[in-house]
């Protein structure tokens, strides 16, 4: 979208995707990823992030994207101090960058290995601020179940402790294991419960 078109557009006409980054900015992000020095245990995002070639990113790749690469790249590419916020597009980009940093901060508070009332509150503050910016940018945005579910995480951190104890990656892994299991497409020949009991018994007999 051109700068003139952006300035002429009414506030309530904006939809998700209108502020998408262009191919030049995407190349900047690729060079950003390649220039980043990260510890050996830190999974990098795909070097061609944003292209269809890399397939569906893994959860760990999404996490590393949001942990550093994407918020920092957006802030660096859209250098607001240099450009100023003279037009609508720049103003929206600044808000979008802020929203991304808020989301990254919320994830940081939520996925910390320890938790407390302060951490849960900070998570809620960041998440609510992020959602407020989203609504401000896209007034016609309809809230999705994920937006609603994200606001339950704060109380969960208080009730159940750090997220690593109760997040669903364990079940994701089991689903992946089930998906890879060879079957003859005949229902009822394989009993998961029996399998689990057998596994438990074997362990007890060791």
């Amino acid at each position: 979208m051109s700068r003139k078109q952006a300035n002429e557009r009414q506030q309530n006409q904006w939809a998700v995707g209108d502020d998408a980054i262009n191919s030049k900015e995407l190349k900047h992000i690729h060079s950003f990823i390649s220039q980043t020095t990260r510890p050996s245990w830190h999974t990098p995002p795909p070097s061609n992030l944003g292209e269809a070639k890399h397939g569906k990113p893994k959860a760990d790749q999404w996490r590393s994207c949001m942990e550093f690469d994407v918020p920092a790249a957006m802030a660096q590419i859209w250098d607001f101090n240099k450009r100023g916020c003279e037009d609508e597009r720049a103003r929206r980009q600044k808000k979008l960058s802020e929203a991304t940093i808020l989301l990254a901060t919320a994830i940081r508070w939520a996925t910390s290995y320890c938790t407390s009332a302060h951490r849960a509150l900070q998570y809620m503050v960041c998440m609510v601020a992020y959602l407020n910016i989203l609504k401000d940018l896209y007034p016609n945005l309809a809230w999705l179940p994920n937006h609603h579910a994200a606001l339950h995480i704060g109380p969960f951190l208080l009730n159940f402790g750090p997220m690593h104890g109760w997040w669903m990656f364990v079940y994701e892994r089991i689903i992946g294991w089930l998906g890879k299991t060879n079957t003859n497409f005949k229902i009822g020949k394989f009993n998961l419960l029996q399998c689990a009991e057998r596994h438990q018994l074997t362990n007890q007999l060791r």
Partner: protein
Amino acid sequence: MLETFCASVNFKALLLHHHDMAVVKKFMAIMDDATKDRSRDPLAGIMLDADAGVAPSSTPSKRATRGITLSERALGALNTMYHQLFNKPMPAATICLPKHIVGKVSFATRAQSTRDCNVFFRSTLCGFMAPGVIQFIVSIPSIATTSKRDTFFVIERYAQLMEDGTSNPFSSHKDFGASLWSSKMSAVLEAVPVDHIVCHAILRPWVKDVILFKALDRVSILHYPHFLFRLMHVNLQAF
């Protein structure tokens, strides 16, 4: 995670079936079995304070015991630090290591790895968290017991950024944890005990002579000296 989950289920089942102390031995066996392969452990990245002071966790490799010699600057920093800590001159029997493992996290010297040498540490000279590059890892015989060795890191610290025209988009988002530092290094090397190392750092060049750092701390959230607590009004009713 799945192994840990299964292990805890097994543990629960054992407790339900047994009422004697032998159950503890079986529990240990299950946990040992479950934690044999720690490479895929989701808790990788945690620095365990309990392990931090245990020097023997780092295995001096063949390369470590030969070839690496301390520079004069590093030796000076070590001597000063050792004297401050123990009020004694540093013993001569020191070993330079290429890397040191704390918990499950490997810290390496710059010569060994350019990725695992960038850390955030508690600087003894400036009194706050700062990013730096590990130049040497030194193992020194412990004063308390002859069988143990203490590990020290000799770190080259990045200089603080002077207040100039560099824009910092993260200044209003301190909790995000990113900060800008000068690419120039401080004049003196700093020697610190292993418990002063906080976590690894992720970094990239920002503008000329400026580097963007972020501490990859998964346990605590670092707050920098210039941290300002910003209260935000939360309106939950809107959702």
